[in-house]
């Protein structure tokens, strides 16, 4: 085990990117004080399908595909000696979802993990990453979706109560490719994720879906960035969050940048938050920067509200008691996104967890 010594990237909390994050709770992953764990917790569940390879490469054989000014990403790239690389060969259609599991680690040290997912041209796959247990994890996931390829990435943060997870999921989406991401964050002490997309060829598209549910004391931050730097790309962002209990805090940042070259861009982003009790706080900041007027459309919406009394009245007037009516409304609220996963067993499990969290929060 080693301790990182460089400190040139250490955020202070005054930076725009860090102004919401409780730095003290990051377990030192941002300032180099974390003990670097010697563990590789990412494992592939089940047999590898034809055309799919998964191997550990040394960092020098798997250079970063993207640039990042994120402090934790910088430290990951400095600390990680190897990279978990998943490759789906060109023209391969993987019928069943590829399921990764992250085994629990420990919270005395932090795993600094690099992952690369390479979906070659005209391949098609669904990848599900199941994160459970208690750990400290700093993670740099780079995704390349080749020309005409189609990737659905489901990232499930079903963490235990003391997990700290700082992760970046950066997708480079090439010509005519589609990238769909579904991020579910319903466990952990602090989760800070950067789902970001960079369009690398015209005709590319992405759909970024997410749900988060924070209860007392949990901090969940999702900071999206979609970089429209080529023409005729399309992006859709839809994140929904619910909060219950004292000191529950969520942050959603939706940055979309339409560069001068990105004519024909079509983008829309949406964030909705449901406050289920007093003492919770939801920050929601959509942000659109546009350098060309030659676009199809660009818009965003953000709402934060409480239970709709009329909905509860309607359900209760049919004999459903208050707590069941609230449970139905919350399930319905999340269902729009959860149903996008397309995996019945996982959807049921997530909804059950949401029910349990809701019951525990007494909201």
């Amino acid at each position, binding site marked *: 085990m080693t301790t990182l010594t460089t400190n040139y990237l250490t955020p202070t909390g005054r930076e725009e990117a860090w102004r919401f994050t409780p730095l003290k709770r990051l377990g030192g992953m941002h300032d180099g004080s974390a003990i670097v764990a010697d563990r590789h917790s990412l494992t592939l569940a089940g047999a590898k399908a034809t055309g799919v390879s998964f191997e550990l490469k040394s960092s020098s054989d798997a250079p970063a595909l993207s640039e990042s000014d994120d402090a934790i990403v910088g430290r990951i790239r400095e600390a990680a000696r190897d990279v978990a690389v998943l490759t789906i060969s060109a023209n391969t259609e993987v019928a069943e979802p590829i399921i990764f599991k992250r085994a629990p680690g420990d919270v005395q040290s932090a795993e600094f993990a690099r992952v690369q997912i390479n979906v070659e041209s005209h391949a098609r796959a669904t990848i599900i990453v199941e994160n459970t247990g208690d750990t400290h994890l700093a993670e740099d996931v780079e995704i390349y979706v080749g020309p005409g390829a189609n990737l659905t990435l489901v990232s499930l943060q079903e963490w235990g109560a003391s997990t700290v997870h700082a992760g970046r999921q950066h997708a480079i989406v090439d010509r005519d490719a589609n990238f769909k991401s579904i991020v579910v964050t319903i466990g952990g002490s602090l989760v800070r994720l950067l789902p970001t997309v960079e369009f690398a060829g015209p005709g590319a598209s992405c759909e970024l879906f997410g749900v988060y549910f924070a209860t007392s004391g949990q901090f969940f931050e999702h900071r999206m960035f979609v970089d429209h730097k080529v023409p005729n790309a399309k992006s859709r962002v839809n994140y929904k969050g619910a909060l219950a209990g004292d000191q529950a805090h969520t942050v959603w940042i939706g940055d979309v940048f339409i560069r001068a070259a990105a004519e024909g861009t079509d983008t829309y982003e949406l964030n909705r938050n449901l406050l289920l009790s007093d003492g919770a706080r939801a920050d929601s900041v959509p942000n659109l920067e546009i350098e060309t007027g030659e676009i199809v459309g660009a818009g965003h919406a953000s709402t934060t509200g409480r239970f709709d009394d009329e909905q509860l009245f*309607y359900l*209760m007037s049919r004999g459903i008691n208050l707590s069941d009516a609230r449970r*139905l409304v919350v399930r319905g609220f999340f269902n729009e996104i959860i149903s996008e996963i397309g995996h019945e067993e996982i959807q049921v499990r997530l909804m059950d967890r949401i029910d349990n969290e809701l019951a525990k929060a007494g909201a």
Partner: protein
Amino acid sequence: MSTLEIRGLKVSVDTENGAVEILKGVDLTIKSGETHAIMGPNGSGKSTLAYSIAGHPKYNITGGTVTLDGVDVLEMTVDERAKAGLFLAMQYPVEVPGVSVSNFLRTAVTALRGEAPKLRTWVGEVKDAMEALNMDPSFAQRNVNEGFSGGEKKRHEIMQLELLKPKIAILDETDSGLDVDALRIVSEGVNRAKETNNIGVVLITHYTRILRYIQPDFVHVFANGKIVEEGGPELADKLEANGYAEYVSA
């Protein structure tokens, strides 16, 4: 045999200018198997009566009593009123995004019957109720009231009336926004539910046309927060001919 008894009911709502009294002492008795039409001009307080009986939190009861078979309804929560046997078909049914009709109905019937219905018989019940109201089977998979047309919303309300089997049902302007065909189908549903389960029905309406399909035993004219005239079906004919002018100006 059930009896809903409303005595001297006074109801106010809070507004920016303080509390405003809307119901000014309503007396009404509804028994199983009876059909009462409550007719009146817009703004007379008909819907307030319906929502107050169902327990909507917006309405403050300032006087009077409501009992179902002698039990105080006003002390009950909204869901307890439904469990006691009251049902309100709403004029503007509320959208519940992400909750399917099928899930909603199963949850409601489980709450009302105290146990989950047997799956096979329940699926059959729902299918029959939907067919009887001329509803496409895909309807069950849609989200509650989301994107429903006006007619679909009303059919969905009456489907619930048939499935949930209340003792007393209040239908708040169920006829509004329906074309002739839909009005006939919905009315047949009400008559069916009434005959099968001996429901006492309160039909709140502005117009007389639904009374051609659902025959009332009693007609009550509602104006300015109270019942101003009562009679049999012939009173509806008088309203059809003369309108509400004489009651409003009074």
